[in-house]
Each structure stands twice: as structure tokens, then as C-alpha cells.
């Protein structure tokens, strides 16, 4: 029977591009190669033009194609400057010549009622490149797993061609679809057109909850240990206020990885990383193990096919590489001491048809990852070793709310959660969230004995009587 998801929190508009569309097929016709070879943009861009060749897709060629179309569209078929793409190429070219960017520092623009989702951007050479004098970014909340219907994407393309530059990121680093370059006047129309016609909201920016993102999960991965898509959607919807209206000390990122392979990099990039794991035994198909040993199934799903590595050697490639050495071959049978397994996924990745994670699945929660600004890069620290998770994920929401509360109360301006944990100590964090400490949270105990003993931990407290002391010790 097909799995039934809990369903959306708000009604979703039906999407039919033929009804939604703005442009005709003729308007959307792409130029022929011949037309492109004749086409010159208004600026000389010899440096960028060196990047039109070479096998990797060329962003310069792509932008020139779009520039060609914007020359052809009628005046009333675009509400942002016609020259946006050409002037962008021109400005990037002089940036390469000068070895310095030509974007001004920030600029406060946005849509009413939201504190995030729009980043203001202005050129510092607007006379030379008037098309990009105003070139604001809009972050659009991507769909879970980054799956799309072409009806949705084509509608976004038409909207963005009409009201912006036609240049976008699929996707930005945090996960959003990013619309690059529009004018202030079009921000509200873009926002409300998306909301009304496409059931599509903006993402986060600034000191708020940034747009959560997830891996492909159960949609097309046998390793997914919980429903990354549903949890990402549920958490995104439960914290819409935190996402759109900045009230935190700094940014806060949440990412959902379905297993310890970590395809969305949650452990390095999110203030709260949700990583799928299991607590029972790895499932073994001994027949398939034999097939791997016999060379009937390529190891690692065929990832090494491009080179002759010789015959698959289960001892050298799997058993000896196990980080806890908890595996062995016993008379042709693979045995695993699951109690010592740390669930690194190596054996499962290498022999996916023979080994599968257990069925008692859940998540580990880790906290505090960030890029180097300011105290140096940090990875997320293990907080909750294992947690069962089911929609609507109240246990995860409750912990996340406590984290927000503690960070709100103690965090300094522009202090990420990980820096606060470092400043105050992991034990203070655990205390605030209501977690007992455990050796799993550290690589090793401290080497210095500089314990900040609390007064109540020491019999008699910190009040000392020097006169009493002196009755036993002469000055």
C-alpha cells in the first residue's frame, strides 16, 4: 500500500502552467547558435568570454542567452530593467579587472511584516551599469528533497522574468531557491504573486531561523532512517514566525540528514543537526554477502567501476576498515557484534544489498555547528544520542524551543549557538535543555581539573570563617 503522508498545513494551489503562464512560446523561443554567434552584449567582457568555452556548463553563455531574450521582449513584458543581465556581466567583468567587488554594503529592503527573505543589494557603479543599480535578492523556500513539478518551475521562471533579472540559484547554500536581482518596487508583487498563485512563501535571512533543509530521504534512498521530508516540513511550518521575523541573537540553521552519511552536511553547517540512526541490529542477508564475496555484485553500488581495483576483498575492504572492529567472517558467514557498532555506515555503503540498518530507527540530535566567523569553525556536538520520532514531532519541537529560549537569554549579539556552548560550557547547555550528561557527548574527559564547582555541590558551601581557620593555623 502506498504510504500516506500527513498532508500540507495550508491549502496548496493546483498548478497548471498553461493556465499560469505569462509568456507565449514565441516570446520564450531560445536563440539559435547562429543568432548567438552574431549577438554582442553592450559591454566588452573579454575576461568572461574566456569562460564560454570548456566542457563544464558556462554561466557566461547561459547569461548571454538570457540577455538575448531580454533584448527581444516588449517593454510592458518586463518590470525590472531590460539590461539587468548585460549590466551584471559588465559589472562582473570590471570586478575581475579591479580585483574588487562592486556591490555596496547591504541596504535595508524587504516585504511588509517580514524581517527576512529579502537582501538589499546596490551597485557602487550605477552610472556605468544602471540595470543593476538595484539588484536585490529574494530567498524562496525550496521544496523538501528539492523535487519539483515543471509547472511550478516554469511559473517561477515566468514570474522572475517579468519581475526580476531572470537569474537565479538552484539552490543557495542554505537550501533556498534564490532569485538574484530585482528592484524594490517589485518585491511585494513577487511575494504576493507567489503566495496567491503558487502557494509559495519566502525563506529566511538575517538573525532568524534560516530555511530548514533536508536530504532526499525516503523519497529515493534506502538508507533514510526517518522521514526527513515530513520533519523538515513540520518544523518549518511550526516555526514560521521565527523564520520570517528575526528575534534571535544571530542566524539559526536546522538541517535533516537521513543517516550518518550526512548528505546535507548538517553536522558541519547547522545549529541543530538531526541525523537518522538506529538502535537495534544491522540486518544481514548472508546469501548476498556470499554474492559480494564471489564478485557477483559490485561493491559500493558500483561506485568504483571506473578503475580496476581487483577482486573485492571483504576482509580488507570491510572487516578491517570497521572503526570498532566489530565484524568477522565465521565460516563464510558475516557476524557483527552490534553492541560495539558505532553505525558509521561503511559496511552498509559497501554492501548495500547484503546489509541494511536496523528497524528500530530514530535520530541523533547534535548542536552548534558553524563556519569560521568568529571563533573558528565548529562542528555539531552530540546532545541527544537517540530519539524516536513520529509526526508531528513534538519531542523535537520541545527541545528546539528550549534551545531557542536558552540562546535568546544568554547569547550575545551575533553569537551562534555553538559559540555560546563554548563560552558557557556543554554542561550548562545540557542543564538548560534538561539532558543528563554522558560520555558520548565528549571525545575525552577534560585534562585540566579546573572544575567550576558550584557552592551547593560542596558541603558547607563557600562561606569561610577565617577566625576559625586561624584557631588551627598561626599567621
Amino acid at each position: 500500500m502506498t504510504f500516506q503522508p500527513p498532508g500540507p498545513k495550508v491549502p496548496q494551489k493546483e498548478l497548471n502552467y498553461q493556465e499560469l503562464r505569462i509568456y507565449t512560446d514565441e516570446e520564450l523561443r531560445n536563440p539559435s547558435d547562429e543568432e548567438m554567434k552574431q549577438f554582442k552584449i553592450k559591454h566588452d567582457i573579454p575576461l568572461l568570454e574566456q569562460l564560454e568555452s570548456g566542457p563544464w556548463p558556462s554561466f557566461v553563455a547561459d547569461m548571454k542567452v538570457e540577455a538575448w531574450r531580454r533584448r527581444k521582449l516588449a517593454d510592458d513584458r518586463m518590470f525590472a530593467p531590460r539590461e539587468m543581465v548585460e549590466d551584471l556581466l559588465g559589472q562582473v567583468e570590471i570586478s575581475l579587472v579591479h580585483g574588487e567587488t562592486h556591490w555596496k554594503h547591504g541596504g535595508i529592503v524587504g516585504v511588509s511584516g517580514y524581517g527576512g527573505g529579502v537582501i538589499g543589494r546596490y551597485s557602487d557603479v550605477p552610472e556605468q551599469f544602471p540595470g543593476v543599480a538595484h539588484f536585490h535578492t529574494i530567498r524562496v523556500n525550496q521544496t523538501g528533497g528539492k523535487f519539483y513539478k515543471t509547472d511550478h518551475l516554469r511559473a517561477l521562471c515566468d514570474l522572475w522574468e517579468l519581475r526580476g533579472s531572470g537569474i537565479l540559484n538552484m539552490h543557495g547554500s542554505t537550501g533556498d531557491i534564490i532569485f538574484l536581482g530585482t528592484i524594490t518596487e517589485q518585491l511585494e508583487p513577487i511575494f504576493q504573486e507567489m503566495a496567491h498563485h503558487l502557494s509559495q512563501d519566502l525563506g529566511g535571512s538575517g538573525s532568524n531561523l534560516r530555511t530548514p533543509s533536508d536530504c532526499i530521504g525516503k523519497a529515493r534512498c534506502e538508507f533514510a532512517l526517518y522521514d526527513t521530508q515530513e520533519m523538515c516540513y513540520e518544523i518549518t511550518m511550526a516555526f514560521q514566525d521565527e523564520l520570517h521575523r528575526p528575534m534571535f541573537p544571530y542566524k539559526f540553521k536546522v538541517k535533516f540528514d537521513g543517516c550518518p552519511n550526512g548528505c546535507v552536511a548538517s553536522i558541519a553547517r547547522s545549529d541543530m543537526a538531526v541525523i537518522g540512526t538506529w538502535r537495534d541490529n544491522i540486518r544481514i542477508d548472508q546469501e548476498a554477502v556470499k554474492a559480494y564475496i564471489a564478485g557477483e555484485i559490485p561493491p559500493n553500488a558500483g561506485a568504483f567501476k571506473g578503475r580496476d581495483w581487483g577482486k573485492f576483498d571483504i576482509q580488507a575492504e570491510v572487516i578491517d576498515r570497521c572503526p570498532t572492529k566489530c565484524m568477522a567472517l565465521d565460516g563464510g558467514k558475516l557476524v557483527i557484534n552490534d553492541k560495539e557498532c558505532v553505525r558509521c555506515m561503511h559496511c552498509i555503503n559497501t554492501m548495500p544489498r547484503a546489509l541494511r540498518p536496523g528497524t528500530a530507527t530514530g535520530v541523533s540530535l547534535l548542536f552548534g555547528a558553524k563556519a569560521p566567523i568568529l571563533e573558528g569553525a565548529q562542528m555539531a556536538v552530540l546532545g541527544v544520542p537517540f530519539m524516536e520520532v513520529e509526526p508531528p514531532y513534538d519531542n523535537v519541537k520541545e527541545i528546539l524551543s528550549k534551545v531557542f529560549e536558552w540562546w535568546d537569554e544568554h547569547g550575545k549579539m551575533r553569537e551562534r549557538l555553538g559559540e555560546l556552548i563554548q563560552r558557557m560550557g556543554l554542561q550548562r547547555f545540557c542543564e538548560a535543555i534538561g539532558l543528563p550528561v554522558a560520555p558520548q557527548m565528549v571525545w575525552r574527559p577534560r585534562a585540566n581539573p579546573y572544575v567550576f564547582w558550584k557552592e551547593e555541590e560542596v558541603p558547607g558551601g563557600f562561606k569561610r570563617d577565617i577566625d576559625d581557620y586561624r584557631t588551627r593555623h598561626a599567621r
Partner: protein
Amino acid sequence: MGLSSTKFGVYNPEKPNENRITDIGPRYYWDFFPPVIQRNYGKWLYHEILEPGVLVHVSETGEKVYTVRVAGMRTMTVALMREACDIADKYCDGYLRFTTRNNIEFLVTDEAKLEALKKDLQSRKFYSGSYKFPIGGTGASITNIVHTQGYVHCHTPATDASTMVKAVMDELFDYFTGMTLPAKVRVSMACCLNMCGAVHCSDIAMLGYHRKPPAIDHDYVAKLCEIPTVVVSCPMAAISPAQTPDGKKTVKIKEERCMFCGNCYTMCPALPLSDKEGDGVVILAGGKLSNRITEPKFSKVVVAYLPNNFPRFPEVCATVKKIVEVYAQGAQKHERLGDWIERIGWERFFEKTGIPFTEHLIDDYRLAYDTYRTSTLFRYTDAAWAVSKAAGGIK
């Protein structure tokens, strides 16, 4: 109802709150899944990479789905996006997806369609000859470089992103379309230390970096910035309040303390750092994100500075390629770049790659001592003999 083609659409500037819709979040993911994904959600048994860029996933229901992965450009236009939609409409019933590393994936259930799809994708080229949708990026390969905005949209970069990524991927193209490496190699790129690309856990990272302290726009510091905020923004406490000769409030900077992080510029537009001679590229290596075999680890600085040699960055390309080639030759199967380096030792890494070990590579920030080798366990290389000679220990 169609999208509006009037200037303001459904938005009424006279009554901005009229019929306003907010807080609706993203589209519900389920509605964008192809039927085969809906039918097999959570039921996948295993997958196999049939050839570089082509995967098959097999479900416990017996159904199969084939995926063709192609390189995407993070920065693209609606022209290329519509072309990707044309392909998805023709072969994939109007569905497609993007990966976290900016690739595009086309899913089909019919093996016959798979061949036609592959052929179509490989045939599409820009007028200038570049592929539009090259197939690859699976298994023991180098897949797409995640990157930042650079000169296309950012006010703080120390280099450009799109140009460097294009130049480097042209060089590494055979590693994208093949699966010849000992393990996957993740290459990432960020234009400055803010690292919106979070490259700090990549096998190979390319990072833009400033090398000159901020220029101080004295007449504007007080107008544009809150001076106390700027002072505390500096992690090295190098900034203090000051006055100009004509009595304006400004700041002064102890230049020898500056580590060029740019945090002050984030707080104050009157303190720009970018500079043609100062800015360049740092190369880091040996990081990883996955928990496979060993724990996730940070990338380490292996080249402190390479010039911003636009637009093709020959020095960056040569360094990255050299690291990949030496790794490909020396590492064992399944061994990530960082695990290989830890096995052979960093001294051997510098010997094998020929990358000079300079004093810039020795940490002198917080917790630096933890990176100093407090042991007699080391391997001899020419670098060690040079120290011995300098110390008068050998002739």
C-alpha cells in the same frame, strides 16, 4: 487563475494588507514527487550506479527508478531552467529534482526512455561548445563544486566564485564523468571567511581571503557605523575608538593584530578590506562530513595564498589537480583524502605533492598548541633534513 502580467499583480500598493497571504511555508513536498516515488516512498531496497551519472534504485515492490544526474550551475538563468523543464516534460512526466550540490536529476521508470534521455542530454551544448547538461558526478568521482556568490552578488568577497568554479571544473571534468578515484572527493568554494558555502569540511576547499587590513573611511565611520559595535566585532581587539585631526569620531586599527577576517566590515561599511593585491585564494584539504569509517573532520590550510589570476586561476587549478592526482595514485580504495593524509602523515603529503610547507601553515590562533607535534613520532623527509642542517645537526 494565471499569474498576473500587470505591474503590481495581486498586490495593491494603495492597500498593502488587502488579501495578504503570509506564513504559508514551502510547497508540500509530496505533491512534487513523481508517482513512482510516491508509490515507493520508504520502500527502497538498494541502488546501483550503472555507469557514471546513471543510477537505478530498486524497491521492495519490485519497481525500479532510473536517475540521470547532470551538472547544474548554481547560478543559472530561466533560459536554462526552462530547457531543463522541456527535458523533464519530454522524458520524466514533468518532474525533476536538484541535489544539495547543485546538480540536476532526471528520473525515468522506463529503460527505453533512459537511453533516449541520456543521448538527448549529452547532445545539448551552448553555442560556444560547453555542455549544458553533462552526465556524471556519482560514486568515486568529483561532483559539482558547491560555492558562493562572489562578484555576481556579494559585498564581501575576496575572490570570485562562478569564474573559479567554471575554471576548476573544466580542469577536473574527467573526474566528474568518470569514477576512477579511491573515494569521492568533495570540492567546495567560498569567497570569504563568512563562508556562506561552509567549505570547512571538504576534501578540497578553495577560500577567498583578504591580506590587507581595512582601509578606514574616516569621514564616514561615525555616520555609517556604531563605533562600540565595531570595536567589539574584532576578535583580536585590534580596533579602538579614535578621533580625526578635525575632531570627527572614528576608529584606529592595530594593523599587526589584524587577521583579515572581515568581521569589522560586516558591522561597518566604512572599513572595506577588498584589494586587488591583497586578495587571493587559500587552499584547504583533508576535511569530510560523513561519519563513514572516521569522524567528520575540518579541512586544513595547505596553501596560504594563491593569486586571483582571473578568469581561469591557473595556479588554483594546478594545485587542486596536483592534490587530486597524488591522492588518486597513493590512496587505498575507500580512503578519503583526509584519511589518506593521516595515514601517510602530513610531512609525506607535502613531500608527495611538492606543495611548500611555509610558516603560514602553522597555526597561531586560539588552541594552536593542540596542532603542534608533541611527540618523537615523525617521518623523515627533505624538510626534516633541512631543519637538521640549519640546527648544525648534520652537514
